[in-house]
Structure formats: C-alpha cells, structure tokens
C-alpha cells in the first residue's frame, strides 16, 4: 500500500526545488521538529517550574510579585509545613512510599509468576486465562472501587493500610508486560536444559528465568509504582483516618481546607512541590540505565 502511495506522490516530489535549494530546505525541516519538541517541553515543564518558584514565596509575595520571580519564604514555608498538624505531611509521604514500594513489589512478583507461566508453558486454558486477566484492564475503576469498599467493610478491613494495598496488587497491564518480556527473554531450550539437569520448575524459574526477566520486571515495578503513587480514587474511598492517607489524598484535603483560607495556599504549593520531587528524581536516575520505550512493551533482542 505504501509503495502505491509513493508512486502517486512522485510528481509532487519532482516539482519540488531541486539540488539548488536542497540543503537549506533540509536544514529548515530539522529546525521544525526541534522547535516543536522544545515548545512541547516548555509546555510540560511550565507548571513544574511554576511550583518550584511558587514554593519559595511567602504568602504575601504569592499574590503580589510576578509569578516567575523567586521569593524569600522557602524555609518559612517548609517549617510551616513541618509544623502543620505535627508533621502529618511527612506521614503522608511515608504512607505513599509504603503503598507504592510494597504494592509495586508484590505486583511485580505476581506479574512475574503469571507472565512467566503464560509465556513458557503450554497448557489448557492458557489464552482464556490470559484474556480474562487482561480484561481487568478494561474495567473502569468505579465499578471496582465502590463494591470493593463495601466488601472490605464486611471484612472489617476498610480504613486500613491493607484496604489500599490489596486491591492494587493485581495489575493486568503488568501481567501483559511480563508475558511479553518473558516470551522474549527466556528461551525455551534454556528452560528445557534446566529440566534435563533435573531442576524443579520453581528452581528453573528463580535461578534461570527470573534473572533474564529483570529488565522487564523493573519496568513493571516502575509502572505499578507510579500507578499506586498517583492513585487517588481508591484511598479517597477507602480511608477516613488522615494518618493513613497517601500524599495525593493529603494534599487534596489540605487544598479543600485552604480554599477559603488563602494563608494555606503556600502550604499546599510547598507540599505539591515536595510531592513531585521523588518521582521526578526516580525517573531522572532510572533513565540512565533503563529505556522509556520498555513501558510500551518494546523488546529489543
């Protein structure tokens, strides 16, 4: 199809400026993508740059000085945030870290088991199981979260760490990614060789397959870490005790209170700035030895 289209395009290309105007034209086209991308980068960095600067402003400066002019109140804001309700902000950060790290680890383990089984074994019901697990990705969170709350309430588990952790362990997309990585990274004859040597299936998985799957599993971990760290709906529904809140929910309640008291704005802004730091740092560090492309299931051999 594409070759057909190209032949149609040929006359147009022929009428284009020939060799004389070739080089400047080509340079201009390299300029367009670069500028477009730079514009995109500015758009994406703008709010982040704003929050960095705004967090340095005192309450008065926030409303009086030009937005992108740094202020002088960062340390004040920080100590105010520390003092707010005896440092509950840092509890929220700690909770988010706990939910995200523990949840993502468990999620990665479950995805690794499932992905490996689905990629390496031939067994009855394999595709059905895979499709059923994958269908979970299509389930709107609302049809899950409300009944999850009601069911967990029956088990007396709502408003607990478990109520936020448990529903997020199974990640359909993680299973999907793990299957792709396992299929690409674990050769069938290596597994077979392990069996010949008399290794148990568990041992083959932990000793041979798992190390091969590590780059893919890092991706599953990151994906799920971000998903849990960013989750709002589930903790919003499950939790009422604000000492168990993750940072998203904590900042939201802070904003809700602050809406009528602009004095709290600086707290919200400083809190938001500190909340985006960990994930930005994580991505900056990790992208040195990990490729973003892995997130979409790209496998390079």
């Amino acid at each position, binding site marked *: 199809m594409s070759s057909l289209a190209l032949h149609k395009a040929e006359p147009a290309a022929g009428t284009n400026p020939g060799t004389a105007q070739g080089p400047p034209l080509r340079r201009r086209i390299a300029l367009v993508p670069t500028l477009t991308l730079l514009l995109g980068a500015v758009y*994406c960095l703008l709010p982040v740059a704003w929050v960095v600067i705004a967090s340095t402003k005192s309450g008065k400066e926030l409303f009086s000085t030009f937005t*992108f002019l740094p202020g002088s109140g960062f340390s004040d804001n920080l100590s105010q945030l520390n003092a707010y309700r005896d440092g509950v902000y840092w509890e929220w950060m700690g909770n988010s870290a706990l939910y995200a790290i523990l949840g993502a680890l468990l999620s990665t383990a479950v995805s690794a088991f499932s992905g490996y089984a689905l990629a390496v*074994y031939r*067994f009855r019901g394999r595709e059905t199981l895979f499709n059923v697990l994958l269908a979970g990705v299509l389930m*709107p969170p609302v049809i899950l979260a409300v009944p999850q709350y*009601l*069911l967990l309430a029956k088990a007396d588990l709502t408003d607990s760490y478990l109520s936020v952790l448990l529903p997020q362990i199974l990640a359909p997309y993680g299973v999907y990614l793990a299957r792709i990585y396992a299929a690409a990274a674990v050769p069938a004859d290596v597994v077979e060789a392990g069996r010949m040597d008399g290794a148990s299936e568990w041992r083959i998985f932990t000793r041979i397959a798992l190390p091969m799957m590590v780059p893919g599993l890092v991706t599953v971990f990151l994906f799920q870490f971000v998903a849990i760290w960013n989750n709002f709906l589930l903790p919003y529904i499950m939790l009422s005790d604000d000492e168990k809140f993750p940072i998203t929910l904590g900042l939201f309640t802070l904003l809700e209170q602050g809406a009528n008291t602009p004095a709290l704005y600086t707290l919200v802004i400083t809190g938001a700035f500190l909340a985006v730091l960990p994930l930005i740092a994580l991505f900056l560090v990790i992208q040195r030895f990990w490729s973003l*492309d892995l997130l*979409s299931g790209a496998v390079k051999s």
Partner: protein
Amino acid sequence: MSSAARRRPYGVKGAPYAFLLPASLLFLLFFALPIGYAVYLSFRKVHVSGLGLGKNARSEVWAGLENYTDALSDSELVNGALRVLGYGCIVVPVMLGLALLFALMLDSDKVRLAPFTRLAIFLPYAIPGVVAALLWGFLYLPDVSPFYFVLDRLGLPQPDLLDGGPLYLALSNIAIWGGTGFNMIVIYTSLQAIPAEVYEAAKLDGATPLQIALRIKIPMVAPSLVLTFFFSIIATLQVFNEPTTIKPLTNSVSTTWSPLMKVYQDAFGKGDIYAAAAQAVIIALATLLLSFGFLRAANRRQKQEAAR
C-alpha cells in the same frame, strides 16, 4: 520437552497453574467478586416498612430494573455524561494528535535535543493527577496566574478560566498535559520498529520527510494509534481526580460534575449504594460499548484500506 514431561508429569503440568494461582485468586477477590456484587446490588433496594423505625423496619428487597430506570431518567447523571462526552471530544483528539506529532518529530532526522525534550514531555506522567490539577488550578487563578499577569499588563480582557465554556478547556488541558507523554512513548516505540529499508526506498524515490510521515509512518503505526485511542476513551470517561481537585477552587464544578463523581456522591454522600451500583454498571457498560465500538469501526476501516 516430551521426555521431561513424561519423567515428571505432575511437576510440569501443575506448574503453570501454581504460578498463576496468586493472580487468579486476586482476580477473583478484587475484580470478579466486586463486579458481581455491584451487579447484584444494582437490582436491590431498601424497603422501609411503617415509619422506618425499629430494628426490622428496613430490609433489602429485589428492585428489578427500578434502579436502572431511575438512573437513566436522572437528569444529573445524563448531564454529567454529556459534560464528560464534551470533555472527551477535546481531550482524546488533542492529546493523541500532540502525542503523534511529538513522536514523529522525535523520529525525524537531524532533530536536536531529542533525549531532553522526550524526557521533559514524558515528565507529567510521573506527576499525580491530583497534583497536576492542583498546579494548573493555581495557574488558572487570576490572583496567582502568570497568564493573567501578562494579560493585565497588556490591557487585554481576562476570561474566567474556571467557569462556563473555558472550564472545559481548563479541565481538558490538565488531562492533555498529563497524558500526552505516555502516548508519545507508545507511538514513538512503534515508529522505531519500522525497518529502515522502508524509508530508504522512499527517500530514493524523492519523498520529502512530510510525505514519508504522512504516507508511510502514520499508516504503519496505525495499530498503536488505535490502541492508544481505545485506552484514552476508557480513561477519559472515568474522569474523577481532576474535577474533584479543581472543585475547591471554583463554584462551577458541582459534586456531580462527572458521572463518576455522581456515583461517589450517591454511594457515600447520600448512602444509596443501590442507585450508585446501578449507575456504576451503566457507566461501565457505556464505556465498554463506546471503546469497543470504536475498536470495531477502526478495525473495519483498516481491513478496507488493506483490501484496496
């Protein structure tokens, strides 16, 4: 394979099921059971006898389709659905258009600063929707916003971004900002999977980069475009975090602005879990209907194109 399987039939045969046990259990407990329970609840209601006092005055009974007919005739739910459809009509095309544009630019020859811009555009993915809404929310506030500062200095009119029509744009912008990067990566990855020979032939034929992008690259990444569209529709119709976060900053976002917010409000504000369950089921069905309808239409078109 066969000899090993014969030696230890149980070890090998049972192994995949054992490996899949945790996922299956979690699926049953946290996916299948809640969905089943929601469907069950959607057909129930509370029956109040007498004055509703006393221990046995309130009992749960079958409601038939009552909750569904109530939900479908509830103007607030219908209006919420329309608001979200309007919002989705802005978010999905603009977000994916930008994602495709950036992916094509990243993939073009001689582009400078690509690693930096790629990371910068991807960055919002790492920022929670609530925080994103909070950041933009402040940027929309006249007292704080740099845009208003500039408009003020230039003596231009300053629209209220958090009301009426502009509110849709304001909310859409938050979703577009947050979602473009991830979709860009997905599309860029499939662009990179196109073998170089395809371009070589086109270049020899004298095709310009624009022609290559329009006639080779976009058709070849069509499957991943369809997939990103599919998932974006699902995600957009579930919008909850952004309007909920913006709500404290403006009076124009009601507690039932999006259908999901209405479900939350009915379940936890009013305590009517039966109505909320019916609405959740309707939203889920409508979402799946729309997203799969799109997928079918896209597949049919692709087949037609291939046949031509």
